[in-house]
């Protein structure tokens, strides 16, 4: 008890921030519902209950274990699925749009959402533990806690959208931790696991290889070590798929150990009359080359360049709003190391929310709250939408997108060309 009180006394501000962060998360957990959370849960249920393996990725496999433990308490999931199965309608395992209505109207929806999103809190606590091990500086750690636990993008993506990207985030953080401690092989193994969850983390692999480069042999071994978890999980998925009982239904979802997010990269192009160029394909290699040209490469530089690569990727490709959390581990570490990024980061967050509220998720954002007041949110749009009636939405999208790209550019400048003033 004495130890506990002394711990609280020593870390009072951090504990207050974490509790406030928890309160904000708890407010979102039972009242927001996004369709992807349902379809992923249905696939997990199919695996846990019927042994039919149609999981999309490693995150779903990990969460299946949790679902197995709490299966008896999730009455609403089988209830919802049972509305579709007798008719042989298995679309809900790919896209649960049709099931949103049934789920949101139920009295048990908030309780079920709480159970489904609860493991994200555990992953976040684990991520915080790893985050605090990276730097020994007390002030930096308070900044890390603040930027993590009161991070609007993280809260929005994980708790409002209910996405499981917190799992690869944790794996990447572990990889960064080992990179800081110079434990090369562990660092590459965890990066491999993160890539197995989300193939997008492949874009920081070249930076890791440059940072840890010793000779050609070590380079090849490092690539093999990264590939090892990806290969193992791929084989595991293939095995589980072949191991299932005969399926007489029309279930057709393809299981893969990694997602296809790379498809989105051709979104932003510079076009002339005759041709189109995707700037992503030359800006990211240029960042790799610039990192390679640096004579002194340290951990902070690795973090900064990884942030830069992600900023470019996320700004110049077609993304869903929740993808933005892929950037967070690097960005938070970069800000904690150099507070100059903070201001551009804050503007970036505002521009991000404006752009995505206008361009992508205006309807998603309002229907998300169906469980708390079905009759209201099914029938009305947001205040934002009413405002758009008077102002041309195309112009507002253009302005917010420009601000979003511009602040990303400013961040990029600070990350790559500015030196830290120690």
């Amino acid at each position, binding site marked *: 008890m004495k130890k506990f*009180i002394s711990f*609280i*006394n020593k870390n*009072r501000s951090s*504990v*207050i921030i974490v*509790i*406030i962060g*928890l*309160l904000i998360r*708890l*407010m979102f957990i*039972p009242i927001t519902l996004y369709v992807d959370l349902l379809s992923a849960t249905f696939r997990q249920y199919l695996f846990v209950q019927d042994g039919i393996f149609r999981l999309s990725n490693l995150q779903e496999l990990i969460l299946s274990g949790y679902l197995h433990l709490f299966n008896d308490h999730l009455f609403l999931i089988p209830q919802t699925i049972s509305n579709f199965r007798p008719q042989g309608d298995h679309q809900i395992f790919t896209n649960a*749009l*049709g099931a*949103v*209505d049934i789920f949101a109207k139920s*009295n*048990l929806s*908030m*309780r079920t959402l*709480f159970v489904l999103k609860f493991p994200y809190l555990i992953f976040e606590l684990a991520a915080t533990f790893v985050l605090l091990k990276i730097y020994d500086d007390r002030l930096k750690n308070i900044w890390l806690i603040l930027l993590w636990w009161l991070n609007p993008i993280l809260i929005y993506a994980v708790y409002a959208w209910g996405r499981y990207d917190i799992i690869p985030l944790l794996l990447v953080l572990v990889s960064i931790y080992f990179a800081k401690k110079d434990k090369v092989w562990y660092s590459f193994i965890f990066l491999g696991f993160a890539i197995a969850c989300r193939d997008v983390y492949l874009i920081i692999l070249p930076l890791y290889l440059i940072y840890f480069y010793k000779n050609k042999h070590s380079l090849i071994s490092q690539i093999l070590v990264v590939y090892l978890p990806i290969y193992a999980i791929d084989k595991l998925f293939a095995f589980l798929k072949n191991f299932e009982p005969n399926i007489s239904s029309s279930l057709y979802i393809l299981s893969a150990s990694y997602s296809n997010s790379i498809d989105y990269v051709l979104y932003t192009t510079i076009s002339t009359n005759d041709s189109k160029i995707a700037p992503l394909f030359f800006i990211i290699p240029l960042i790799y080359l610039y990192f390679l040209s640096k004579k002194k490469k340290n951990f902070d530089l690795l973090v900064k360049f990884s942030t830069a690569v992600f900023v470019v990727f996320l700004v110049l490709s077609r993304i869903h709003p929740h993808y933005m959390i892929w950037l967070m581990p690097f960005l938070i570490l970069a800000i904690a190391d150099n507070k100059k990024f903070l201001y551009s980061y804050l503007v970036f967050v505002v521009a991000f929310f404006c752009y995505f509220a206008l361009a992508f998720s205006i*309807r998603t954002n*309002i*229907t998300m709250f169906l*469980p*708390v*007041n*079905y*009759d*209201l949110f*099914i*029938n*009305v*749009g*947001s*205040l934002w*939408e*009413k405002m758009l*009636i*008077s102002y041309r939405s195309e112009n507002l999208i253009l302005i917010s997108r420009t601000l979003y790209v511009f602040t990303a550019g400013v961040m990029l400048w600070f990350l790559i060309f500015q030196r830290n003033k120690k």
Partner: protein
Amino acid sequence: MMKINWIKFWLVVLLAILFSCSHFLIKDLSVQLIAKNIDEFGISDLEIVPNKQEPLTQKGAVVDFSFVPKRDDVSGVILYGRKHKYLFGENLATLTMKINYQKENGENFYLENIIPVSSLRGTIFSINFQPLLDCKDRTVNIEIIANQNLEEATGLAIYNQGIETTPKILYEINLEEELKISYENIKNDRYFFYFYFGLISLLLLAVISLFVIDPKPIDV
């Protein structure tokens, strides 16, 4: 021994009082929100049926449409100028708006408003009226009639020619009422309600205690 920081304590009390007062702030606060069709969910279908669409240049010309609202308290419509031109006319020129529908108890509701043309400058026409009670799932008919010849008047677009010209319905939303409904919805699952608010209260208490109680000085 615990030592309470009284400045922080009174600050928390002040915040609690302000929070309680916020109830009075939203008590009569209403907002107007647009009725939505959420096609991708396939769970709402608010369709506007055009009955008549005449250019409002001649006295007696009519724009007439009907719809079946999904909620009570319809309080306005947004219409679009068909030719993207202003409604020109004398400063005192007016239009008449007639609204009628049959309530569930069989009673006929009829409302007539005079709308000054000068209030409809622009290509988007937002026309508000008193919230319609007991209109949910009833066929509401709205008629707009020109009261005199107008120099250059646009027909209001009421045909479904894409998002830009589809008329929109506005609902009056009372915030306090909606919060009460949300609260009742959470309360429907009693055990979860107790657990959830218990957890929130516990965390709130913890954060207030940590904020208010000063740390014990570390012995040197």
